[in-house]
């Protein structure tokens, strides 16, 4: 017997112990534990990814809402009377879901007194989108939109205006004024305050007539936004008031 065979025999029992493997129970236990851990990891991962996406969306929507609100305030605040040849007042329409004003805000040459104001409209649609339109060609009207439509409490403006309206610009999406707190009792996007001829303080969401509209001194903007549709919190309320500088 060679030394090598002797060595082989003496080594064989030890190798058998080393190579005996794991039992089925151990395997199942290991798999179960691995499965649980993997599931937890995936759940955490998806939750965090979703959280990241939500956070990003909230941030973007919040930014847009903030910009929209600021833009509306500045533009409405600048409302001024049109030239004497136009038999209208600065606030041409004062409705719950839309407003039409004459303004020079952000218009080229507005530092010159000779630059006339232009028509600008903000309108909320049933798809939750708030759009801005303006008289881009200076012909005295906003083509492609109807500024005499009635819509309350349901929002029924034709969505085609978003494509055909002059100077159309999407300001912000996911506006839920039309369904908050309920469809039957929605929240007006605009609320108007002023003083009657006898000095009585008046507030309304719908003001008709040039005389009545000329009494408006401030426009309150209530922008209800669903930052993450389908997820809580249900909506965020941005509220601001534009004091009309040229009617005081």
């Amino acid at each position: 017997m060679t030394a090598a065979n002797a060595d082989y025999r003496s080594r064989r029992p030890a190798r058998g112990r080393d190579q005996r493997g794991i039992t089925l129970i151990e395997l199942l236990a290991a798999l179960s534990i691995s499965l649980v851990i993997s599931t937890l990891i995936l759940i955490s991962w998806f939750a965090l990814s979703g959280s990241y996406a939500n956070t990003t969306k909230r941030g973007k929507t919040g930014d847009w809402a903030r910009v929209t609100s600021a833009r509306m305030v500045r533009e409405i605040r600048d409302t001024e009377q049109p030239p004497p040849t136009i038999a209208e007042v600065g606030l041409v329409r004062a409705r719950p879901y839309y407003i039409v004003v004459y303004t020079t805000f952000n218009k080229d040459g507005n530092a010159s007194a000779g630059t006339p104001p232009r028509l600008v409209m903000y309108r909320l649609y049933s798809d939750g989108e708030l759009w801005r339109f303006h008289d881009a060609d200076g012909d005295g009207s906003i083509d492609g939109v109807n500024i005499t439509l009635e819509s309350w409490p349901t929002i029924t403006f034709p969505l085609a205006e978003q494509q055909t309206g002059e100077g159309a610009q999407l300001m912000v999406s996911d506006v839920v004024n039309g369904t908050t707190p309920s469809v039957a009792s929605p929240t007006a996007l605009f609320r108007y305050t002023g003083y009657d001829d006898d000095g009585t303080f008046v507030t309304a969401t719908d003001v008709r007539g040039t005389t009545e509209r000329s009494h408006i001194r401030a426009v309150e903007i209530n922008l209800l936004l669903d930052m993450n549709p389908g997820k809580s919190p249900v909506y965020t309320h941005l509220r601001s008031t534009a004091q009309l500088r040229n009617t005081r």
Partner: protein
Amino acid sequence: MRTEAGEGHTEAQGRRPHGGERTMRSAKKVDAARARRQRGAGLVVVITVIAALAVSAAAIVTFTGNVQHNTSTTRMKTKSFAVCEAGLEAGMAFLTNSWPVSADSAATFDSDGFRDRFSASEFPDPETGEFIAVDWYDDLSPEDPDVAWDSNGNGMMWLVAQAGVGSQATRVLTMVERTWFTMALPRGIPLWAGGDVESRGDQPKIFVEVSPPEGVVTTVHVGGDILVNGTGTMTEAGISQKTGGDISPLDQVFPQWLVEALKLKAQEVGRYFTSQEEAEDSPVDPVWSPWGGLSGLCVIEPPTPTTILAYGGATINTEEQPGVFMVLGGSTLDWRGTAQFYGVIYVEGTCDFSRGTADLHGMTVVNTDYGLKGTPDIRYNDNCIANLDERFPSATRRVQNTWREIQPE
């Protein structure tokens, strides 16, 4: 790392020259140790969790930073707008008292004083430009921003304010107009005295220099008696005299609210004095005291009743720019010399208009007694009364429908 170091150490041991059983045992130990070390997934789990947390943390940090930035921008924008409107108001207040009526009289807005009203921590200096800039120019056509005074004399100018706070700036433009202190004094009254009037020497002493509007009879109102010490009558022909209970009440001639308003305005513009010397030494102001001293709006109210002795030969005011001279607090006005005064004199005490040859062109109102001695005269001048209604500005206000927020420069 620890595993690699251990393996290296093991290999080094395996190459030892001793060999045999010892080498085999060492190899088994290494295998067992390696198996123990490599059987779990802890490192993978830890790395995964850390990665997930890192993503979440990055999202939160990004979102928070974004929100903070936007909030800061919005706050700065709001502040710059507020400062800009405050600058506009301050500019209007400044123009009320310093309306530039000529190229030479164009004053400068005190930007530094305005800046001092705002804390630097809450209203940081702008990254570029000035904290506040308030300018004005005349409403000419075509527009010319270089004409920084009311060159067409219509009482209107453009006022523009620009404010910079932090990274944000706001610029607002509006037209402003002067509003006047409307006194609405009654016409045709050369003298109103609450007490007696004594007229000595040559008569008459009260004349009409410029007649009142048609239909108005020039009338002297004396609450007491008219005492003439000499020959003739105190007033020239055509001037009516009312005495006693027939006179118009003082509230209809020079009402108390007007006294208070003029006093308040004089205090605002530095034309309120407590002594005669202080008033006589006062400087020229293009609007409120065109010739300095007693000219323009001048209110003297000594703390205790005394005698204001006015004399000299200067011409004080003009028919086009009449003045209002008021002596309050019960002091006596003793007017002498050869001075020619245009406008209205109001005295709460007595008035002694004597000696010399001085003339009052306009109207005199005295609460109590009035003495006319020597050769001084009162010459009713309707132009002086009429021109007082657009003589002193009361405020500068915005012209409606001219307010615009424009692009900052």
